[in-house]
């Protein structure tokens, strides 16, 4: 189950490091480097929905851009359909790109207001090479219908559409080359729940109909829980916990995952008294990523369970051993559940 079979693994991210050079504070001071991704590895199989969660600034969008080969990693590699993206020549990269599309975080910024919807949606078709005008229009019309818009919408402009419809336009643009994987960066953020539900249903329908895989990025845990079968929790450029979505959410191991889950407001007023416990969440005010990328665990300064060891060396992602820890029956699937913490929850419970 957990073997990374090459036939099924569509996307493999291996130990990717992405650093940004920060502007110098003073003219002659050395330029500082900031690690937005610090050795990220994960595998997405064909037709699978893989979720990425974490607070803003943890590196989710950077991961998306790196997977899309819009940015190159300093080290590590990204392998899509068996080809290593950053070693490809421009020509080959264009070919691979057909199979790999993205829905950007901000549909207002990413849809050019001066272009018609037809033009916007047709843009990735250039990856497919020469094509007649008729064929082009036909594909645009078909794709617009696919996402619940009308072929007549092709002549309209983005400002004529509501927020939810603009997401559909962004989805249509990603869908038109019939990709195998769509990287969706916050595809429903800032939408009302009713509209959000419509867009999420559409994404699920498309997945079922076209066998799409998603790398589904969101800071909303309930949405990720609903949409994905595997998930990785990121903190300060690293994956701190990963596993089957349901397993991970129901048996969260990392104190950060547990804090995130506790912070989600639930539509249930009877939970109110319990909620007051939020006050005892670690104080995250003084959280400053730049100073946190030292030797130890990046979460150490916010962690309620921190000990000396956590500050001195950084825990590796490790399997939660089947049967070894409380709350886990002996099931081989559990090997997929990994956590980077010296004091995972199960260890606390078993003591």
């Amino acid at each position, binding site marked *: 189950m957990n073997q990374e079979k090459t036939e099924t693994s569509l996307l493999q991210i291996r130990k990717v490091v992405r650093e940004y050079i920060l502007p110098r504070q003073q003219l002659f001071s050395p330029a500082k480097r900031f690690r937005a991704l610090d050795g990220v590895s994960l595998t997405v199989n064909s037709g699978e929905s893989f979720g990425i969660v974490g*607070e*803003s600034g943890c590196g989710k969008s950077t991961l998306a851009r790196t997977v899309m080969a819009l940015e190159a990693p300093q080290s590590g590699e990204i392998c899509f359909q068996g080809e290593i993206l950053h070693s490809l020549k421009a020509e080959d990269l264009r070919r691979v790109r057909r199979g790999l599309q993205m829905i950007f975080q901000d549909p207002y910024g990413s849809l050019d207001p001066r272009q018609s919807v037809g033009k916007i949606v047709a843009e990735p078709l250039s990856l497919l090479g020469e094509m007649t005008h008729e064929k082009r229009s036909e594909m645009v019309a078909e794709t617009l219908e696919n996402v619940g818009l009308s072929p007549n919408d092709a002549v309209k402009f983005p400002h004529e559409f*509501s*927020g*939810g419809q603009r997401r559909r336009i962004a989805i249509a643009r990603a869908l038109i080359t019939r990709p195998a994987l769509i990287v969706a960066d916050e595809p429903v953020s*800032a939408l*009302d*729940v*009713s*509209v*959000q*539900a*419509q867009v*999420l*249903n559409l994404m*699920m329908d498309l*997945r*079922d109909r076209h066998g799409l895989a998603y790398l589904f990025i969101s*800071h*909303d*845990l*309930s*949405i990720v*829980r*609903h*949409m994905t*079968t595997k998930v990785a929790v990121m903190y300060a450029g690293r994956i701190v916990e990963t596993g*089957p*979505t*349901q*397993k991970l*959410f*129901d048996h969260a191991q990392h104190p950060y995952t547990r*804090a*995130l889950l*506790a*912070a*989600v*407001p*639930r*539509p*249930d*007023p*009877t*939970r*109110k008294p319990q*909620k*007051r416990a*939020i*006050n005892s*969440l670690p*104080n*995250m*005010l*003084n959280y400053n990523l730049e100073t946190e990328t030292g030797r130890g665990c990046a979460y150490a300064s916010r962690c309620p369970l921190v000990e000396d060891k956590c500050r001195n060396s950084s825990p590796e992602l490790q399997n939660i051993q089947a049967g070894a820890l409380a709350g886990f*029956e002996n*099931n081989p*699937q559990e090997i997929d559940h990994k956590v980077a913490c010296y004091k995972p929850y199960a260890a606390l419970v078993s003591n």
Partner: protein
Amino acid sequence: MNLLTVNNLTVSTEHQSGSINILDNLNFNLERGKSLGVVGESGCGKSMMAFAIMGLLPDNMTASGEVQFGGNLLSLPEKELCQIRGNKISMVFQEPMSALNPVLPIGFQVAESLRLHKNLSLHQAQQQASKVLERVGLPSQQYALSLYPHQLSGGQRQRVVIAIAMACKPELIIADEPTTALDVTIQAQILALIAELVFEENMSLILITHDLGVVAENTDQMLVMYAGRIVERGPTNKVFERLAHPYTRGLFASIPESENPNAEQGLQAEYSLTNRLSTIPGRVPEFWERSKGCSFADRCPRAQANCSLEVPAEIQLGAGHTSACFFPFEQKV
């Protein structure tokens, strides 16, 4: 004792064929020390309601009815309103940068409202400002009064906005989507901070949000607004128990389940691929598109012929719990 009583509050504007109501006959009240949640999709009029209470409506709009807060705020001259705004009623907006002046230090901005309303000297106001900032979690040893907004994170900026809102110890705080732009963890902290301050100073709170979870966990009473009207209101726990108005129920049903009832069944209960969310078809009408009867009729699964002809009156469902619907749901399924 009611701190705020809103009677027949109507806000209208001129639009092509004539005057149209953006807010239509709102009625509710809020007790001292209590919190009131306001939910509804965007465009339902939540912010307009806040602006109407604060006397901050755009020039092209007029308000009628009563907003009783001591006296009727709608009939106060602007000069007297200025003494109430920021002093007795404060507002916290969604986007902290829009409420902060980017070229003034945070200490100055907090002190400014104290100088304006409390007649403090610059020195006194600065000292007081430093106390208020410490109270919202920004102690001056770490966060100098001379810092500028851009030197702070989003959550920290929202704390400064809350400090400004709190500085004069208002009786009522209106928070319009105060955490929408923030991460859940920061959201939880900001909401906990607001709740704590409101409790300690015995203030009242109107918390506007599109997040039913936020309302459920942070308010005593709630209003559900749709297309400029209140369609359901009551004690928060009663509203959630019953979800009487089809709109309230529709909103609730479209939230992805955050907790899995079958948690302990483990992997067998893996989500099926076609686990669809329930949705509300269509969208909120613009104020000039609203139909004659119930504005929700064309999206409503329970609508009958008379729904689109007649506006349903608020009916009592229980103590303080009302719904404006001809066919409210009985009990939660």
